C-alpha cells in the first residue's frame, strides 16, 4: 500500500465537495462546463470506489485484515476524526458511486435544466452520502447526515412547483426535527459513555456504571428513532412516498440510497455496540426492529396496492424494501446478514432504475414529448427490442420505445417482486433460507415475517402488473414519445448490474457473507480503529 492509496480513503468526500464548490463559481449559463465537471467528478467517484473495493477484496481474499483507517488531521483515533474503510463501507461507497453516475447521466437529458445549481447540489449530496458511509464516529455521522440532508432539500425542491414545495415543506420540517433527535441521542450517549467514537464506545459499554445504563439506553433508543425515520420505518415513514414522488426523477433515483443510509447506520452502530452476547444489553432493540419492520412491510404492501400513480408505487416499494431489511436484521443477525446485504444492493439498484423508468413511462402515457432532438434508442438484448416487429400477427406493430419501456418495466417489476430468475429472487430466497435455518424450532414471528415477505412480493407483482397493463399495453393514439440515449442508458446500466448480480450470484453472495462476518468481528474493527497509526507521530513517542 503506497502513500497515495492511503489518501484515497478521503477522496470520496473531497472530490465531490471540491467539484461542487467549483460549480458554484461558474455562471448558470455555462451548462456544458458544468456537465463536464460533474461528469468528471462522478466518474472519478466510480473509479475511486472501485479502487477501494478492489483493495478490500484483494486484501480480504489473502486473509489479511481489510479495515483501513484514515486519521483526518493526524489526531490519534478516539480524539480526532477517523474515517474507516471496511467491507461494508466500500460496498456502500460503490453503490453510491454507481447510483450517482447513472442519476447524473439521466439528469443531463433534461432535468438538470429544470432549475439552477442542480449539479452542485447533486455532488454535495454524494459527498454527504460517502462521508456518512466512511465516518467512524457518531458526531461526524450527524454532520454528514446534515450535509446529505441539506443537499437533498435542495434536490427535492429542484424544479419547484406547488407539489414539490408542499412535499418539501413536510420533508424539511420532519428532517430538522429528526436531526434534533439525533443530537439528543448522541449527547446522551456522550454524557453516559464519555465518547462518540464508535470503536471506543464499543469498548466502553461494559464499563458504564449501572446508574447510567438507563441514560445510555435512552440515548441509543432516541438515536435509533432518528435512523429509522430516515429508513422510513412504520410509523415514522409516512412522509416518504409523497416526498419521493414529488421529487424530480434523477433526484428520486438518488434518494433510493438515502433511505438505505438509515439502514446502514443501524447495521453499523447496533451490530458493533450490541451484537456481542457478553455486552450488558445483547441484541438491544432487536425486537423493535423485527416488529417495526414487519409493520413496515404490511404498511408498504397496503400502500402499494392502493397506489394510483407509478411514483407512489415506487415510494411504497422503498418502504417494503426498508421493512424487509429491518425485520430481517431484527430477527436474528448472523445467519441472514449476508442475504440482507445482497437484498440491500439488489433492491436499491432496482428501485433507482424504477424511479428513472417511472418518469419515462408516465411521460409516454401523457404524450409529453421532449422538445429537444432525440437520439435513436439503444439496443440492449434483454429489454426485448427484438419484439419491435411482431410479424403483424396481432396487427399492431409495437414501437421500439414502448418495447424498451415495457421490457425495462417488466424487468424492474420482477426484481422488486422477487420472482425468479433475477437477483431480487435470489436475495429474498437467501433471506428466507437464513431465517429458516436460525433455530431448530422456528418462532411464530419468523413465520409471520416469511409470510409477509412473500405476500409483499405478490402485492408488488399485482400492483406493477396492473399499472403496466394500464400504462404500457393500453393502446393510445398520442404522439410517440422519443427516448434519448442519456435517458435509456442509465436504466439499462442499472438493470445490467442487477443482471450481473444474478449471473455472478455465487461470488457476490460470497462477498456479502464475508461482509456479514466482518460485521460480527467487532474485535477486528475496534483494534484497527484504536491502533490506527499516525502519519507523523510526535517526537519522543514510538
Amino acid at each position, binding site marked *: 500500500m503506497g502513500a497515495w492509496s492511503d489518501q484515497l480513503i478521503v477522496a470520496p468526500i473531497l472530490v465531490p465537495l471540491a467539484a461542487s464548490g467549483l460549480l458554484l463559481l461558474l455562471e448558470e449559463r455555462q451548462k456544458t462546463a458544468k456537465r463536464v465537471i460533474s461528469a468528471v467528478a462522478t466518474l472519478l467517484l466510480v473509479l475511486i470506489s472501485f479502487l477501494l473495493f478492489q483493495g478490500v477484496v484483494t486484501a480480504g481474499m489473502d486473509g489479511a485484515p481489510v479495515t483501513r483507517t484514515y486519521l483526518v488531521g493526524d489526531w490519534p483515533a478516539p480524539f480526532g476524526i477517523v474515517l474507516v474503510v471496511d467491507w461494508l463501507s466500500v460496498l456502500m461507497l460503490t453503490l453510491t458511486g454507481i447510483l450517482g453516475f447513472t442519476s447524473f447521466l439521466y439528469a443531463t437529458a433534461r432535468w438538470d435544466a429544470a432549475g439552477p445549481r442542480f449539479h452542485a447540489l447533486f455532488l454535495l449530496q454524494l459527498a454527504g452520502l460517502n462521508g456518512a458511509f466512511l465516518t467512524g464516529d457518531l458526531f461526524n455521522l450527524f454532520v454528514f447526515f446534515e450535509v446529505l440532508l441539506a443537499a437533498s432539500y435542495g434536490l427535492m425542491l429542484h424544479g419547484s412547483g406547488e407539489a414539490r414545495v408542499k412535499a418539501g415543506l413536510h420533508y424539511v420540517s420532519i428532517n430538522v426535527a429528526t436531526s434534533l433527535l439525533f443530537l439528543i441521542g448522541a449527547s446522551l450517549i*456522550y454524557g453516559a459513555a464519555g465518547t462518540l467514537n464508535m470503536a471506543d464506545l464499543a469498548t466502553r459499554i461494559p464499563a458504564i456504571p449501572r446508574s447510567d445504563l438507563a441514560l445510555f439506553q435512552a440515548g441509543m433508543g432516541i438515536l435509533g428513532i432518528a435512523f429509522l425515520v430516515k429508513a422510513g420505518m412504520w410509523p415514522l415513514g409516512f412522509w416518504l412516498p409523497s416526498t419521493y414522488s414529488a421529487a424530480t426523477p434523477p433526484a428520486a433515483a438518488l434518494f433510493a440510497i438515502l433511505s438505505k443510509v438509515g439502514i446502514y447506520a443501524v447495521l453499523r452502530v447496533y451490530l458493533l455496540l450490541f451484537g456481542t452476547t457478553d455486552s450488558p444489553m445483547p441484541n438491544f432493540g432487536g425486537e423493535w426492529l423485527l416488529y417495526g419492520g414487519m409493520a413496515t412491510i404490511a404498511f408498504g404492501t397496503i400502500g402499494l396496492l392502493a397506489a394510483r400513480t407509478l411514483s407512489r408505487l415506487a415510494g411504497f416499494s422503498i418502504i417494503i424494501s426498508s421493512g424487509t431489511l429491518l425485520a430481517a436484521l431484527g430477527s436474528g443477525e448472523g445467519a441472514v446478514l449476508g442475504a440482507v446485504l445482497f437484498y440491500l444492493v439488489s433492491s436499491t439498484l432496482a428501485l433507482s432504475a424504477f424511479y428513472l423508468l417511472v418518469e419515462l413511462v408516465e411521460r409516454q402515457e401523457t404524450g409529453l414529448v421532449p422538445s429537444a432532438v432525440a437520439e435513436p434508442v439503444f439496443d440492449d438484448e434483454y429489454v426485448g427490442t427484438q419484439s419491435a416487429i411482431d410479424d403483424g400477427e396481432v396487427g399492431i406493430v409495437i414501437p421500439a420505445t414502448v418495447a424498451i419501456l415495457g421490457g425495462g418495466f417488466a424487468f424492474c417489476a420482477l426484481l422488486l417482486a422477487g420472482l425468479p430468475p433475477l437477483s431480487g429472487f435470489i436475495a429474498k430466497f437467501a433471506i428466507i433460507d437464513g431465517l429458516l435455518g436460525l433455530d431448530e424450532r422456528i418462532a411464530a414471528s419468523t413465520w409471520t415475517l416469511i409470510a409477509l415477505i412473500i405476500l409483499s412480493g405478490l402485492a408488488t407483482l399485482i400492483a406493477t402488473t396492473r399499472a403496466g397493463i394500464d400504462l404500457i399495453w393500453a393502446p393510445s393514439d398520442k404522439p410517440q414519445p422519443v427516448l434519448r440515449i442519456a435517458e435509456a442508458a442509465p436504466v439499462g446500466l442499472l438493470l445490467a448490474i442487477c443482471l450481473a448480480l444474478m449471473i455472478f450470484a455465487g461470488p457476490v453472495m460470497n462477498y456479502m457473507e464475508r461482509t456479514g462476518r466482518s460485521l460480527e468481528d467487532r474485535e477486528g474493527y475496534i483494534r484497527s480503529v484504536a491502533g490506527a497509526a499516525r502519519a507523523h507521530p510526535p517526537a519522543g513517542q514510538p
Partner: protein
Amino acid sequence: MEIVLALAIGILTGSGVWLILRPRTFQVIVGLSLLSYAVNLFIYAMGRLRVDAPPVVGRGGSADPSQLVDPLPQALVLTAIVISFAMTALLLVVLLASRGLTGTDHVDGKEPD
C-alpha cells in the same frame, strides 16, 4: 443551577413540541427553533455543569482535568447551532415559497374544510 437549566430545557422543549404540532407554517418554524435551543442547552449540560472553568488549557496553565470543563460538548454545540441556524433559514425560504404558491400558510398547503 441544575434545576434552573432543567426547567429551561423542559419549558423550551414543551413549547417547541406544542408549536410544531400547530397547523401554521410559521408556528412550526418557531417551534423548531425553540426545540433547537433546548437541544443545544441539553448537549451543553451533557458535558456536566461547571461555573468559571475554562474549556482549553491556557498558556502556561495547568493541564489538570479537574480544573477544566469538558470542551467537546461546546464544540458539538457550536456545530449544532450553525447547522440548525442554516436549516431554519432554508425552512423560511420554503415557507415563503409555499405561501406564494398555495396562497395559504397552512402546513398542508390548503385550508381545512
